[in-house]
């Protein structure tokens, strides 16, 4: 098995607030890792450390074998093209239409012709079931639609690793299920590895190969969905209710 993400002794604090104390994590190729944890436990900060948006205080982060703290700007940008990131807030570009939003990550690739780009955009929108929204502006979309467009934008580069920050939060149960299945489909089709942050037990049940629960800044609680949800420890079972 090939390890695509490895985190060793990661630490991050904001002032006196020690958010992450000692995180250790390994993700193999083609694996979905679901992350649970209370609100404010540092899940979003953890994946932001993985793409260099947040500088960790200590510890190592290896993505596809490269230590991201030691890369220069160009190397970091090249690596970031292989890592998809779905923001908790969607983070769509307000001043651009849906089409331009999706074309944005493709800008660097000069090899794509206009037709190829168009085809990729349509395909990405089809994946999330929103072909009709192509010429809308983000402000004209509902919260759930924004989330799905954000997902389409993340998937358009066919990244090797995808970091999902709460992909189903705020969606109805039916759409949530569709998104969970989409995550699975992407995993099968492109053999991607993912970290999925969620509070949604159903999403975790469907997508998780392995799970981790962040508690008090550490990552000691790991296991499969079945192991953790049937754990003898009541505090662990509480996450699944």
């Amino acid at each position, binding site marked *: 098995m090939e390890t695509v993400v490895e985190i060793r002794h990661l630490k991050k604090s904001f002032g006196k607030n020690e958010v992450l104390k000692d995180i250790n994590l390994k993700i193999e190729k083609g694996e979905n890792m679901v992350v649970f944890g209370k609100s404010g436990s540092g899940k979003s900060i953890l994946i*932001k450390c993985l*793409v*260099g*948006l947040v500088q960790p205080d200590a510890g190592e982060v290896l993505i596809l074998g490269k230590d991201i703290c030691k890369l220069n*700007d160009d190397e970091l*940008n*090249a690596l*970031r*093209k292989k*890592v998809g*990131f779905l*923001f908790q*807030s969607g*983070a*769509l*570009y*307000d*001043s651009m239409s849906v089409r331009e939003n999706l074309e*944005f*990550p493709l*800008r*660097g690739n000069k090899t794509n012709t206009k037709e190829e780009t168009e085809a990729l955009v349509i395909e990405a929108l089809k994946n999330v079931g929103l072909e009709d929204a192509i010429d809308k502006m983000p402000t004209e979309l509902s919260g759930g639609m924004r989330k799905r467009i954000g997902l389409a*934008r993340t998937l358009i*580069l066919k990244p090797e690793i995808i970091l999902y920050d709460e992909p189903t939060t705020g969606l109805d149960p039916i759409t949530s299920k569709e998104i969970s299945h989409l995550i699975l489909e992407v995993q099968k089709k492109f053999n991607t590895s993912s970290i999925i942050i969620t509070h949604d037990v159903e999403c975790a049940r469907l997508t998780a190969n392995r799970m981790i629960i962040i508690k008090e800044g550490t990552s000691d609680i790991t296991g499969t969905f079945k192991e953790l949800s049937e754990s003898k420890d009541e505090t662990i079972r509480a996450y699944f209710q």
Partner: protein
Amino acid sequence: MIASIKIFFEEVAHLAMFTFQFFKQVFKPSYEFKEFIKQCYLIGYKSFPLIGLTGFIMGLVLTIQSRPTLVDFGAESWLPAMVAVSIIREIGPVITALIFAGKVGSGIGAELASMKVTEQIDAMEVSGTNSFKYLVVPRIAAATLMLPLLVISADVIALYGSYIGCNINGDVSFPLFILQVFEKLSFADIFPAVIKTFFFGFSIALIGCFKGYNATNGTQGVGKAANAAVVYASLGVFIIDMIAVQLTNLF
């Protein structure tokens, strides 16, 4: 007190680093040419009506207000030249830059700040785009080049306003007006005045980008960034103007 002095110097140091970053990125290949043209259109062309209008009023009012004094001295024929010199040397660049700071500086500050606090800038970064190069560089470059053009057009429109002002109470033909203006106007009036507007444009956009790009604290931060952008950019215009006057007088 000590703490606020410390914050001030930290801010100045950050601004210096931000400026350095700009000069580093602006010459590095893979230029965002399309964004630059778009920003020239938004920053330059879209500001033209506002700046044209203020220019016209500036010329008209200045002429009407100066007239009585000059008439008292029996120097009415000096009116066009005097108004032209004050507009081209000082009032035109400064008033235009202040209007520009209010419109463009705050616009840039608010736009970048809202992109920052809604994680849009982070999203650009993780998609492998250099957000500084894509957002900051074209805006500063466009403002630096557009403000001088706006000032020159404002000057021309202000002179036309002055011509109309001269004809409200007196009677000056257009050729005579032009003759009287250029009799007293020299290259040394025009050249330094145009040069300093490049610095005005640069500093206005630089401060707007700096405040916006480093915004924090959610929506509250957006308002703060837009506000700070206008205040410090306007202050910057006066400071640069003061330095420019001292430098011009040296030669």
